């Protein structure tokens, strides 16, 4: 009897376990085949909803009209999409990325229903992973998707699941958007296949990672030094910083120029590439030559002179003794600690990290300076393309033109609103701004329930940005203008004190930025050889600077580079460059 009981118990336990297993398997299977969301039943239901929605849309679209484009769709049309949600993004009033103030606005104002196939909190590359899984399992692609990851963008384009968009853009985009896009025609380059534009670049503010020199102004003033115009001037400044330090630091404590090159000679902060720029090249990227072809900057003869300069600076102790070990963030450490005199970095650096210098050295003042020129009067820095990803439109999208209705509206009203216009003081009341009892706008924590970043709710990341709008606003502020437009107020409130001046300094040298002109998918030789070539380059350059190899080894490096696949790679890169010219 008792024995039987025990048996029953174990049998029941086994059954329970088996049931759990089955349900777990079943659950994951459902999740995998429909949307991968697992437990997200709302997502599942919305995806089925979207199917019916788009079917309804197609019956509308079959009505004969000259152009399907509308400023407002009635009855509404549906765009399906997927979201990688920034983990820092917050929602209020119980809203979600699927259903929030921006999606309701799109439906009411434009007649566009945004349907979410799935969404994922984008930590550890979750969005990219999920997109890759979606692609691998052959699921229906969303009508519209914005992708930041370059490799994924290339893979999605090459998958053939997305349509050509250039003609759509020409037909439907409004003037403001077209003008913004025309600021640099090369923004399309990465997404061109055989002369066809396959993705719409997402525009971002320009010059974000174009650097300048930040110099300790208090040291300059006490030593009575002039702004360095050439590398020779700069050497005198560094010498004075080191041996006549105004803060009384001993020569071995001072780091006159804080740079590092642990992984690369070309990065966004604490970077030595402008020294190469002074000799007419920027290393580790594809520069445009005077013949209109592309060339790997590190094999340019100027690189040899730059290395000689860096070696001299290292021997004299102007750059950190262990610069070969320092990455970007490490170079900021001595700057913030108050022992570095010069650090190259982007225009927004006075906000972060340099603002913290005052905590260690209260009288420290950092000011932006232009990039000094080399002996031949050349100056250069690496330039950044002002795109932040790409928007792709599915081949199966029923209403591709609706995306343009949506984006045109944002470029018209959101990108740089005039004072007094519809979205001048803010976009959604109670979300990014509110009005107090006197009718004055309030922001941030003064909004009941707190502010949320509604710019991340738009269908395309950050809504609409005109690349030069921010720089132009900064220039107006630098000239002492009181902030009037929304953009100007934002900049005044959110950026460091020296940012407007830095923007002015940056734009005083508009032509010295070398943008990496190769932005296509990796070529076959690149896949096999680029890492090796970069490795011998980093090694050779570091060892030359540290005197372990003679400077003449540079010539041997160039020959080695060319014969080890570099020449082949250059050929392929130029073939790619040729085909990006839109037919």
């Amino acid at each position, binding site marked *: 009897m008792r024995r039987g009981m025990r048996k029953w118990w*174990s049998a029941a336990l086994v059954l329970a376990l088996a049931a759990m297993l089955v349900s777990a398997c079943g659950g994951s299977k459902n999740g995998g085949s429909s949307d991968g969301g697992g437990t997200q039943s709302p997502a599942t239901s919305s995806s089925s909803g979207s199917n019916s929605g788009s079917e309804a849309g197609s019956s509308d679209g079959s009505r004969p009209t000259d152009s399907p484009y509308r400023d407002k769709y009635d009855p509404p049309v549906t765009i399906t999409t997927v979201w990688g949600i920034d983990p820092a993004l917050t929602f209020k009033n119980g809203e979600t990325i699927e259903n929030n103030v921006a999606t309701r606005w799109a439906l009411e104002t434009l007649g566009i229903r945004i349907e979410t196939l799935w969404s994922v909190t984008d930590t550890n590359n979750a969005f990219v992973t999920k997109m890759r899984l979606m692609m691998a399992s052959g699921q229906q692609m969303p009508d519209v998707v914005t992708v930041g990851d370059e490799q994924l963008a290339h893979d999605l384009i090459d998958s053939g*699941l997305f349509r050509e968009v250039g003609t759509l853009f020409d037909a439907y985009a409004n003037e403001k958007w077209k003008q913004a896009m025309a600021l640099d025609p090369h923004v399309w380059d990465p997404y061109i296949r055989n002369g066809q534009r396959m993705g719409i670049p997402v525009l971002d503010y320009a010059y974000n990672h174009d650097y300048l020199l930040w110099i300790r102004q208090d040291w300059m003033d006490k030593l009575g030094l002039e702004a360095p115009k050439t590398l020779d001037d700069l050497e005198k400044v560094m010498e004075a910083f080191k041996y006549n330090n105004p803060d009384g630091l001993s020569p071995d404590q001072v780091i006159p120029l804080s740079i590092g090159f642990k992984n690369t000679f070309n990065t966004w902060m604490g970077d030595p590439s402008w020294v190469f720029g002074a000799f007419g090249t920027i290393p580790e990227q594809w520069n445009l030559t005077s013949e209109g072809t592309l060339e790997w900057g590190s094999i340019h003869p100027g690189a040899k002179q730059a290395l000689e300069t860096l070696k001299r600076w290292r021997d004299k102790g102007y750059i950190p003794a262990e610069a070969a070990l320092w990455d970007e963030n490490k170079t900021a450490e001595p700057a913030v600690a108050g022992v570095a005199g010069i650090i190259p970095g982007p225009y927004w650096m006075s906000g972060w990290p340099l603002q913290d210098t005052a905590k260690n050295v209260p009288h420290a003042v950092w000011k932006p300076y232009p990039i000094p020129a080399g002996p031949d009067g050349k100056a250069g820095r690496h330039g950044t393309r002002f795109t932040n990803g790409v928007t792709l439109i599915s081949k199966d999208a029923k209403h591709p033109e609706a995306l343009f209705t949506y984006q045109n509206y944002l470029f018209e009203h959101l990108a740089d609103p005039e004072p007094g216009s519809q979205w001048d003081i803010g976009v959604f009341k109670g979300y990014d701004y509110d009005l107090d009892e006197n009718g004055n706008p309030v922001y941030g924590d003064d909004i009941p329930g707190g502010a949320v970043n509604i710019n991340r709710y738009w269908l395309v990341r950050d809504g609409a940005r005109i690349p030069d709008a921010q720089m132009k606003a900064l220039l107006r502020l630098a000239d002492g203008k009181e902030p009037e437009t929304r953009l100007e107020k934002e900049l005044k409130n959110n950026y460091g004190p020296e940012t407007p001046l830095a923007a002015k300094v940056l734009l005083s040298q508009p032509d010295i930025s070398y943008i990496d002109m190769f932005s296509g998918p990796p070529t076959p030789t690149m896949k096999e050889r680029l890492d090796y070539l970069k490795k011998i380059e980093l*090694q050779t350059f570091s060892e030359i600077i540290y005197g372990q190899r003679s400077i003449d080894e540079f010539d041997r490096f160039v020959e080695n580079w060319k014969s080890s696949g570099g020449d082949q790679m250059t050929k392929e890169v130029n073939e790619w460059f040729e085909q990006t010219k839109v037919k």
Partner: protein
Amino acid sequence: MKPDIRRTWPLHLMLLPALAGLIVFNYVPLGGIVMAFMDYKPWLGFDGSPWIGFGHFRALFEREDSLQVIWNTLVISVFKIIFNLLVPFGFAILLNEVRIRLLTRTIQTMVYLPHFLSWVILGGILVNFLSTDGGFVNRVLGAIGIGPIPFLMHGDWFRFTVIVSDVWKEFGYGTIVFLAALANIDPSLYEAAEVDGAGRWKQTLHITIPSLLPMAIVVGTLSLGNILNAGFDQIFNLYNGMVMNKGDIIDTFVYRTAILEGNFGFATAVGLFKSVVSMVLIVCAYRLAYKYANYRVF
């Protein structure tokens, strides 16, 4: 006595979920090995991606630096394996001789702690600590007249630093296993030895060390499987242009060429290569352990 399936079937049934999990998560993914022989593209899938035979393996061995990279990996990991075996072994014996329990426990906890630090943090600390430009270690060495040593900027010193810092980080963890084995030694052996007039040294030599040897062989055998893992996160955080020749290992190389580029086929091929080598080594080591230490898993 033969086990009666009619009586034990509930136990077998209860084993099923775990077995299913093992099959689903450990055996089914083995099918992905075919990627090593394909130019795998996620959107083409397994049926659509072109077969390229041993292309990835050829690419791995055709690079000018591939032998160098494999050699670096072997040198670093062999030394790590040896010292990560010897140091905890010796340390456990020494710690066992400390008779004050509180002291033993405290030391054990302290040496165990670094195991929990990530190399991202330790990398930053080591760069400062070992700096030739005012780093703590070089200042101490300077005080006794030894000129600044470029621990992280010279190939041979880099290997030395990587091995020593890894042993420092992990030996506390390894010690635990040996301390557990020490606790299992039959006390009557020591009593008998004392009666026979053996001192502490003789007891260590003839009782403690022979009793620990089987455990040392087990640990050594298991760690042989890692012979091609020289410690990605450690090296990745510390290496630089000056030590590429002697510091670049298979994993950092794969990270740069395959993971960053989304080249799954190549990453799989290298992973397969590493697994095959590890398996051969483990099988050999197991045979040896079986023969000489009578150690067996099955």
